[in-house]
């Protein structure tokens, strides 16, 4: 009974947030100001809006997962009689090798996969922005050295770097996984920000601020960073999609999220050895990844179109 209430609540929260966003978008279309107009443009992109709804719904479900799931995601009620059951009304998406409910694990998996991806991306966006801003702002030799390091880091495929790091240190708690994912994802962002900063710092307001003797830190924080925000937001949204895929790959290789905690990646791994017969164990998490990643990509594209400064005046 309480589960029904939770699902209703979940739907209600999603609808409220979506409606609120919808109203904001509608109202923004009559507003002026670059951010408002970007919001209005985003609002007109139906695909992006639908994708945003999907992601919001997924986030709400993930957040409320403990109240929504019919079974505990790690409970193994009967490892012989209840294992590898195909989807039915009792187990919507079937059960896995240890008689665990795939549907419950999928919801918990959303929690794990989404939160890892978002935390990691916040970390990489922050580090990347600061590093790129510093390199671009100071320029010269500092910039050259900092960018060579970025070049070197970017010349190693990220997945290879991650595999190396994770395997070498063997056991990785979730926090460390987030750190590793975050600290291997900022190189691209920093390049982006640096380019933006290079062009910004010659602009009047920065030159003026410098002439007035403002401190470097204040100039970077007050004048430069707010202006590089939009490319970073776009990169971060697309980056979330990327991190979800990478986390899945790592968990698939057995070096990502540690069992019995479900993540979409290690759920696929759980089913891979019997994919031909017990297909539901790895099919559904795979579809969940594709749907979520698609949604993030559509939102990212939508944001890029909406925030593109060339369109600001067009």
């Amino acid at each position: 009974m309480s589960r029904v209430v939770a699902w209703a609540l979940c739907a209600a929260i999603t609808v409220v947030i979506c409606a609120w966003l919808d109203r904001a978008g509608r109202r923004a279309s009559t507003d002026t100001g670059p951010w408002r107009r970007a919001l209005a443009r985003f609002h007109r992109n139906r695909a992006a809006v639908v994708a945003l709804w999907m992601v919001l719904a997924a986030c709400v479900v993930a957040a409320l997962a403990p109240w929504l799931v019919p079974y505990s995601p790690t409970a193994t009620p009967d490892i012989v009689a209840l294992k590898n059951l195909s989807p039915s009304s009792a187990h919507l998406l079937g059960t896995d090798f240890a008689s665990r409910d795939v549907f419950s694990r999928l919801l918990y998996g959303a929690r794990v996969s989404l939160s890892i991806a978002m935390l990691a991306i916040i970390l990489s966006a922050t580090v990347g922005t600061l590093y790129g801003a510093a390199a671009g702002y100071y320029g010269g030799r500092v910039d050259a050295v900092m960018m060579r390091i970025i070049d070197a880091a970017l010349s190693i495929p990220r997945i290879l770097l991650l595999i190396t790091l994770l395997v070498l240190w063997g056991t990785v708690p979730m926090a460390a996984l987030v750190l590793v994912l975050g600290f291997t994802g900022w190189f691209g962002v920093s390049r982006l920000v640096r380019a933006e900063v290079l062009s910004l710092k010659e602009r009047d307001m920065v030159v003026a601020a410098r002439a007035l003797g403002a401190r470097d830190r204040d100039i970077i924080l007050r004048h430069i960073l707010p202006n590089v925000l939009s490319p970073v937001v776009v990169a971060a949204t697309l980056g979330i999609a990327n991190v979800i895929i990478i986390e899945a790959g790592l968990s698939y290789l057995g070096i990502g999220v540690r069992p019995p905690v479900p993540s979409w990646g290690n759920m696929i791994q759980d089913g891979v050895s019997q994919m031909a017969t017990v297909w539901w164990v790895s099919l559904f998490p795979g579809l969940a990844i594709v749907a979520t990643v698609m949604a993030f990509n559509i939102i990212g594209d939508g944001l890029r179109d909406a925030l593109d400064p060339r369109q600001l005046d067009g």
Partner: protein
Amino acid sequence: MIALLLRRLAQGVVIVWLVATLTFLLLHAAPGDPVSATLTDPLTPPAVREYWVHRLGLDLPLHQQYWHYLTSVASGGFGFSFPHHRPVSAVLAEALPNTLLLMGVAIVIAFAAGILIGVVQARRKGKPVDWGLGIGSLFFYSMPDFWLALMMLLVFAYWLRLFPASGMFDPVMYGFMGPWARAADRLWHLVLPAGTLALLVTAAVARFQRSALLEVAQQDFARTARAKGLGERAVIWRHSLRNALLPVITLFGLALPALLGGSVFVESVFSWPGMGTLTVNAIATRDYQLLTAVVIVTSALVVTGNLVADLLYAWADPRVRLGE
């Protein structure tokens, strides 16, 4: 031009050296060593382990190991792989061509198909074709590489039995085939792994190409051409495409690391004997020498790829000169 080229080359060498140093430090900071990873039998006496540790120089101070390592990298030797019992260079020499073959085929297919799809989409912007192809490429673009590989394996090798699941050629009959049959056999074995990799990259190229074309179409010369009364088709093919190829060249440079990373999963799912499976093995056996060599060679490949992309860019766009 040559001086600039040389400068870029020197930068490349610095990058590779940085990568080599980084991986060396990482590998040695981590627990475990190649000897105990290979001699897994618990009954192996300590004396034998010590003997091999000594022979591989793992008991030397770190800076000496580093020095040995750098000199051997510089001489192209990369040291000795204990789990393979062979010089690392010999192991790499076998794996690299296989990966390059796989990637080469995938890149050619992906860029040809991707550019074509991008053009079709740009021409029919907003029409159902654009929409359908857009969804399709987004779908594959959003797919984890290992998952796509697994699905391809399941569908085409297991359910439909259309293509072989693994390997590069028929293990028995290949030796008894004529040259044409051999080529066909190799192609046959390439279909699934190269197809998987190509699908992933096609999606990225198509998305990139479409938006590049649309952006170019907004620019002045396209407007001028249109104003001159040229048809939309001519505008796209004659004027926009050439300009829109520039970002694709950039993408070629950017796609290399992703492609090399993706081949780790694709190769290991299809048991393709290239650098990807080598990496997974090297990691499992703690093969310091081999792993550092793989990372260095990969980064060298990427650096070279970027250099090639720069050259192509300079060739395609006369406005751009190297180093500017």
